[in-house]
């Protein structure tokens, strides 16, 4: 097949092509552009060059009269109406039809001219009433052909002939078996002779279907072969699946069957009941008549329909709960409606109860489950408890002399408990001196210090674990304001439960000494120091606790003390440097 020469770039079907009329383009140019090579026609290669086809293709667009000659059909000489006598009327709607040819033909055997000759001679021998019609003849022949096809499928090869006795059953099934039976035997002989004459093949020539793959393959007469069936892959899983499906189907069908059966017996019972009712009615009627006849006037109770009794009985009948998967919604229910209604209300209440119980139970469960657990996730930054602190920090341990701080104890009652905001019930009178590592919290988290060398060889002391107690009551207005101001940012929100506390023994000599070595901050010098003695004792103590103005401390757990370049060696806790 000739393909065009690829001289120019390939045409993408998506590219937009400009359209021109022929007059919009230079004719000479157009001519030169269009004498391209042959185009694929899709015709069998061997036939592409056929004379007539080429002639027409050549003339395409020139003359439309060119035609490929074909053997012309003719009008038939047969009388069309004789063969096609039935008339049909046009249907109003589109035809829908699914019958097969076989269903439309009727008797499959069609008499041949030979059969006509036979039948005529046969009928001559018969009495006038016993003439065999063509239709009946065909029916008998059809039975023979069909039986032979079924009983002796290889008749043409093994030359077996189906016997007359084998035909018998088929003949019996014919519509007019009785009338036709007398003819059957003789026609059988005729049929047999015809079969023999044709090499024991069917009397009607048939198409050649495949018989033997090898020899059939090249036989042009063999047609309509079966296609090889595509096998579906068989797996055990699929087997099981389909088995299950079948089982389920069977079960459902069985249920359906039982349903129908039950309905059937119910209807029978109903019929029975109606019959009985009728009998009762008739008996009553008789009774009434008798009564009238005999003039009995008392006791008409029997004549009244006792439907009520039945109704009274009904509620006592215990109906089994309907099966869950019943599909029929409209099932007959004899139970009175009221019982259902009251039950519904009860059930609703019950359900609600159940729900409540369930919820309570769940709450209880949740509590149990949470017992002995502390929810640490509430405070997002809870400090780690335990001895393992930052390695560089050493705990500062202090020991106390037994001197009772009498003066402090009296006021310490008023002193706010710094960080126990979350546990107000723990408010017990504190007799201990605040700021010492005596209480549990401070023991668990003793104050510690760290010395480190910063940039420019500066020495830093880091502290941690010192208690910070915010002031609650301020007496002096000015100091109050000042302190408030100072503490403003040193305090996180109220609900923070683990405010670090820096606990320092204010009377420790070393601490005192250290503090004295710290030069006062310039702002203090400038403003003049408020007299510490003027402060109430608690404030004073507080102040001592924080010798460095708190606003200079970072508001977090770690405070940094810049120490001047002077090699002051601050000593913190007693064993801190060990």
């Amino acid at each position, binding site marked *: 097949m000739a393909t065009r020469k690829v001289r120019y770039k390939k045409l993408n079907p998506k590219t937009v092509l400009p359209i021109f009329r022929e007059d919009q383009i230079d004719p000479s140019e157009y001519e030169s552009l269009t004498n391209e090579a042959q185009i694929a026609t899709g015709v069998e290669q061997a036939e592409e060059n056929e004379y007539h086809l080429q002639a027409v293709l050549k003339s395409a667009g020139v003359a439309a009269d060119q035609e490929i000659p*074909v053997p012309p059909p003719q009008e038939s000489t047969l009388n069309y109406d004789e063969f096609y006598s039935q008339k049909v009327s046009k249907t109003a709607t589109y035809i829908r039809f699914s019958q097969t040819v076989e269903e439309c033909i009727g008797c499959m055997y069609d008499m041949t001219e030979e059969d006509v000759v036979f039948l005529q001679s046969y009928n001559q021998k018969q009495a006038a009433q016993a003439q065999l019609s063509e239709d009946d003849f065909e029916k008998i022949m059809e039975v023979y052909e069909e039986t032979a096809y079924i009983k002796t499928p290889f008749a043409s090869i093994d030359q077996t002939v189906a016997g007359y006795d084998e035909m018998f059953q088929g003949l019996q099934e014919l519509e007019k078996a009785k009338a036709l039976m007398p003819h059957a035997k003789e026609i059988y002989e005729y049929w047999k002779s015809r079969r023999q004459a044709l090499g024991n093949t069917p009397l009607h020539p048939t198409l050649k279907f495949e018989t033997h793959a090898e020899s059939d393959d090249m036989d042009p007469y063999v047609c309509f072969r079966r296609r090889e069936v595509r096998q579906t892959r068989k797996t055990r899983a699929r087997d099981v699946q389909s088995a299950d499906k079948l089982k389920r189907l069977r079960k459902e069908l069985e249920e359906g069957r039982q349903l129908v059966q039950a309905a059937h017996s119910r209807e029978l019972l109903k019929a029975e009941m109606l019959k009985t009712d009728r009998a009762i009615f008739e008996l009553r009627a008789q009774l009434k008549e008798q009564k009238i006849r005999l003039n009995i006037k008392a006791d008409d109770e029997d004549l009244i329909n006792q439907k009520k009794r039945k109704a009274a009985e009904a509620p006592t009948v215990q109906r089994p709960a309907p099966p869950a998967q019943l599909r029929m919604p409209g099932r007959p229910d004899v139970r009175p409606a009221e019982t259902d209604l009251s039950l519904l209300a009860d059930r609703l209440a019950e359900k609600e109860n159940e729900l409540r119980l369930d919820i309570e139970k769940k709450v209880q469960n949740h509590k149990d489950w949470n017992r002995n657990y502390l929810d640490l996730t509430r405070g997002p930054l809870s400090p780690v408890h335990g001895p393992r602190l930052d390695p560089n920090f050493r705990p500062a341990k202090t020991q106390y002399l037994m001197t009772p701080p009498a003066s402090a104890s009296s006021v310490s009652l008023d002193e706010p408990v710094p960080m126990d905001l979350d546990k107000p019930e723990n408010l017990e009178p504190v007799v201990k001196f605040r700021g010492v590592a005596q209480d549990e919290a401070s023991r668990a988290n003793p104050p510690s210090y760290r010395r480190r060398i910063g940039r420019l060889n500066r020495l830093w002391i880091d502290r941690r674990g010192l208690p910070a107690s915010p002031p609650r009551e301020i007496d002096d207005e000015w100091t109050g304001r000042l302190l408030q101001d100072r503490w403003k940012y040193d305090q996180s929100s109220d609900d923070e439960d683990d405010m670090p506390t820096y606990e320092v023994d204010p009377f420790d000599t070393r601490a005192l000494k250290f503090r004295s070595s710290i030069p006062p901050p310039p702002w203090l010098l400038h403003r003049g120091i408020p007299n510490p003695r003027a402060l109430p004792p608690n404030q004073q103590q507080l102040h001592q606790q924080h010798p460095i103005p708190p606003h200079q401390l970072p508001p977090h757990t770690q405070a940094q003390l810049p120490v001047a370049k002077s090699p002051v060696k601050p000593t913190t806790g007693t064993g801190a440097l060990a």
Partner: protein
Amino acid sequence: MSPTGEAAVGSDGPRLIGKATVETLTIGCIAQVIKDGEARRAEILSIKETKSGRQYYCNFDNFNKRLDEWVPVSRIDFDKPVEWPNPDKDKQKDDKKGKKTTAAVSKKQPSKKNSRRVSKREQSIASEDQTHPWSEFVENQQKNKKDAREKANASLEIGATAGIGPDEMEIDEDETPASAAKKESLTPFSREQEIEKLRTSGSMTQNPAEISRIRNISKVEFGRYVLFPWYFSPYPEVYGQEDSIYICEFCLSYFNDIKSFARHRHKCTLHHPPGNEIYRDDFVSFFEIDGRRQRTWCRNLCLLSKMFLDHKTLYYDVDPFLFYVMTTRDEKGCHLIGYFSKEKESTDGYNVACILTLPQYQRKGYGRLLIQFSYELSKIEGKLGSPEKPLSDLGLLSYRQYWSENIIDLLLKFGERDEPCTIEGIASHLAMTTQDVEHTLQALKMQVYHKGEHKIVIPEKLVAQREKSRAKQKRLIDPDRIQWKPPVFTASSRTWAW
């Protein structure tokens, strides 16, 4: 090109040439035979004795097979030399004849083996050991064949698994779709390929190998008409001996006996194709028929249409096809005009497998309606369709006409509206494949390559011609009247039904 073109008959290189007589002229000879008053080369395919004398079945050089005919001695020019068949070809023939006699059927039937060898006309005479003078393809193929044969011999000698012939393996290799598609159009089919393709693709057309070269039925009584078949059709073998066969116009049953036919007509109640009507206008109706449900009717239809379609094969059954049958209505019923068959599921995207207008309705515009209907169905399906190849000569012309008319209409419309035009746009508009669009444009010389750009030119001639044909054309399919949903076939019906 000269109208005769290159000789297609007896073209396998030099042959012995010499004078022949009535007695010596044998099958396979190429003689000069008078056709329409003109002497033409013709191959003798068969010889028969009739009461009026000996007759020769002639296939004329470069004429379609439908013009093959039986000619009396008087039409053969014995003054001109005759080309004798090649000797080894003869031998084969003799072999076949030997086999043939055992078959003991009418002598004019082609032998079974023969039909294989004559798959292509050129090849039919080409001896296998000679290289083909023209085509590399043929040469390659013959080489392949030879190789295959050698391989087969080898494997037989070794006693290897005889089950897998080398031929089969070759087919598997060829089966990569892209190359296969290409090859299909280029190479002649090998028999095995052909059958494999038929089996896998469900195609019904194109089995050149099977085509019997001599028509067997000479005359058909069909409804109001007498038809003269063009090609072989596998009706029962004995029908070949009949002067005329009878086919019921409605159920398409065939009879060789006029009494049987009359009896059948007496009983047959069918008066339209046995399926659902899916289209009706004042003029024609379309019926959809499932090959599986209406096996007998569809087989009958195929047998009938095979008489007029060369490249149709009835090798496999009709189950995987749907048949869309066009009828015309009168008070007797719905008379078959033509039909097209369509694969229920085409892997190659074909929307038509076979298409035929019966000869008595040809050249009346019915073919165009059939083609249009096939594309209307494709439009409903939302697919692009193309007829299965190869096309017959008449099929090509019909399709070309339909395509060109529609494309020109569309282009004119595009031109008026100044819409952009792409090959794809045309294709989706007309439910045609882009290849068909391109081929049509090229065939009509409308697609030009000019200044580095592809352009479409509408020649005035074609516009004028289209105007003319539109004036003549009265009937079209009205898509609104189609009552059709694309039928859906379940996986199981596809798996088990064919």
